[in-house]
Structures are given as structure tokens and as C-alpha cells.
């Protein structure tokens, strides 16, 4: 099978959220969010209430997958950074630790140079957090959080 399912624990989630909040401030960004490569939103910070983050997450992952496909054709491992420039807003996309995607949306109050600089630092922090999370998930003594769910529970979801 491909990647194992990602399980997120509260401790790491809070650490990730702190990194996102800091990046918003340091980079003068509008929105920061983190998505896994399958398109699931992991964390978001900034003014994201008015944004359809679920769709953005899915499209970001699709974008990364397509770019990864192009990299493969050029015999590159991956293209780790993408930048999309709009009239008012811009999107900076960075792959973190080959596993998750860090997205920064910013406008004219910031600049690509500043965003790149701050993303580099956030990248290091996130890498460390996801490394420790991966170790935790792979530890055989950590049971599946879904172990208590019975077949009846699943059946009940579909009884309508």
C-alpha cells in the first residue's frame, strides 16, 4: 500500500498551529494552511473563515501531484516550490518533508522575498514536528484510535 494513514495527535496539532500563526505574522500573510498530499486539510491560520479551504486543499494536492508528475518526466525528484501570481493575491506553495504541503496566501502588504524567507524557517520547524509525529504513529505500542469501533457501528451509519 502507499503511505500509511496519517493520525494527528493534539500535541503535534497545537505545535503545527503555532508555526502557522507565527508564519502569518512574520510573513505578513493573509492565510496559511497545511494540507497532506491526499488533499486533506491539516491546519489553517489567518483570515480563512471566508475561504473554501476544503476545495483549496484538494486543488492544492492536485496541483502538487501534477507538478510531481512533470518532475518525474524530467527525471527530477520533485519541484518543491510553486508560486502563483494574481492581480491582488498570490499563492506560495512549498512541499514540507516530502509529505505535506505548506500554502501561504499573501497580498501587496508582503512580498515574495519575505514569504520565501519565512517559509524556509517554518519548513524546518514543520519538518521536525512531522518527523516526531511519524515516529509516534509508527510506534507499535500506539494502538489504532479506531480499534473500538465495531462492525455494527459502521452498519448503523448507513441505516436510514
Amino acid at each position: 500500500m502507499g503511505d500509511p494513514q496519517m493520525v494527528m495527535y493534539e500535541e503535534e496539532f497545537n505545535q503545527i498551529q503555532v508555526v502557522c500563526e507565527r508564519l502569518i505574522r512574520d510573513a505578513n500573510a493573509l492565510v496559511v494552511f497545511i494540507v497532506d498530499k491526499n488533499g486533506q486539510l491539516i491546519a489553517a491560520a489567518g483570515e480563512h473563515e471566508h475561504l473554501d479551504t476544503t476545495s483549496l486543499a484538494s486543488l492544492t494536492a492536485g496541483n502538487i501531484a501534477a507538478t510531481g508528475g512533470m518532475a518525474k518526466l524530467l527525471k527530477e525528484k520533485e519541484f518543491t516550490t510553486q508560486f502563483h501570481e494574481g492581480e491582488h493575491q498570490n499563492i506560495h506553495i512549498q512541499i514540507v518533508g516530502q509529505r505535506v504541503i505548506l500554502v501561504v496566501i499573501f497580498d501587496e502588504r508582503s512580498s515574495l522575498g519575505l514569504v520565501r524567507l519565512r517559509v524556509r524557517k517554518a519548513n524546518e520547524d514543520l519538518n521536525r514536528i512531522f518527523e516526531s509525529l511519524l515516529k509516534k504513529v509508527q510506534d507499535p505500542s500506539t494502538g489504532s484510535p479506531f480499534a473500538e469501533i465495531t462492525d455494527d457501528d459502521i452498519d448503523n451509519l448507513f441505516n436510514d
Partner: protein
Amino acid sequence: MYYGPGLCGKTTNLQYIYTRTSPQAKGKMISLATETERTLFFDFLPLSLGEIRGFKTRFHLYTVPGQVFYDASRKLILKGVDGVVFVADSQIERMEANMESLENLRYNLQEQGYDLDRIPWVIQYNKRDLPSVASVEELRSLLNPTGAVPDFEATATSGGGVFDSLKAVAKLVLTELKRGGK
């Protein structure tokens, strides 16, 4: 993940699900399609199915582009797949396309490190309302010879069988997740 040959009704399945679910259970449906409404990259529909013991269940439904020459995009969308609805076109003249698409699914999954025999999947025999369709027995003998895969008859345009297929695959995916998904 909805997989199948071109014009078999994958997008129609998603559109029907979209129109028949309550607004609070679904997100926006996204279609990355060409001007002639052929899927270019994927369609996407996020869907909540309720709670199990306090866990919210949220599904992300995707379709792949069916046309043969979009194989590079199709492969990408299979990354991280949890379950597949294979949508077959019941029309006799599409039998070869069905078999080719199923082989393509098996091959592309293998390339991503998955084995079709070991992931949750169901077959949907779609377009049962059309005049020139093969019998379910014929379809089954070609696409599901051992009968091991749950299969459903459907007419995605009017919705028949659409939710049966979705529920069946969702249930298999949850059972797999509970088992550890490894």
C-alpha cells in the same frame, strides 16, 4: 474514487450525489473539465456521512478522467486512494472499453503500490435504462468473474443505484480503516 471508461457516467454519479445531499453535509463540487464538459483532471466532492462514536466521517469523492489519453493525470489521482467505485458502461459496444479500463485501473494501482484485490472496491453496471445493454450476467462474467466484488446496477442520470454503490464502498473503506488499513 470513481474509475471507468470515457463517458461511462462517473461525473454523473457525483452530480447526482451532490443534488441529493443536504447542504450541511456537502461542500462545493469542483469539476476540472474541458469546454465540452469532458473531465480534464478530476471532479471533487467532499461529503460528511455522520458520526461514529464521536468520530466525524468525512469522505472526499473524486472522479478520474475516463479518456484513454489522460492516463498521466489518472495515475496521479490514484495516489492515496482509499476505495474505488468502478463504473462500467452497460452498452454492448462499450464492453471492450470497460475491460480495458479495468485493466488500466489494476495496472495504475500497481504502479502506486496498491493491489486491486486488497483495496475496498465495488462495481457499478451503469446505464441500465439504455436499449442496447448487455445482461448483468454477461457484464459480471467479464468484469467480476469470481463474483467476489460487490456489484450494483445503476442509472446514474436518474440516480438508481448511485447511493447503493457509494454506501457499499464507504462501508468497506471504514471497515478497512478500523482494521488498520495496512
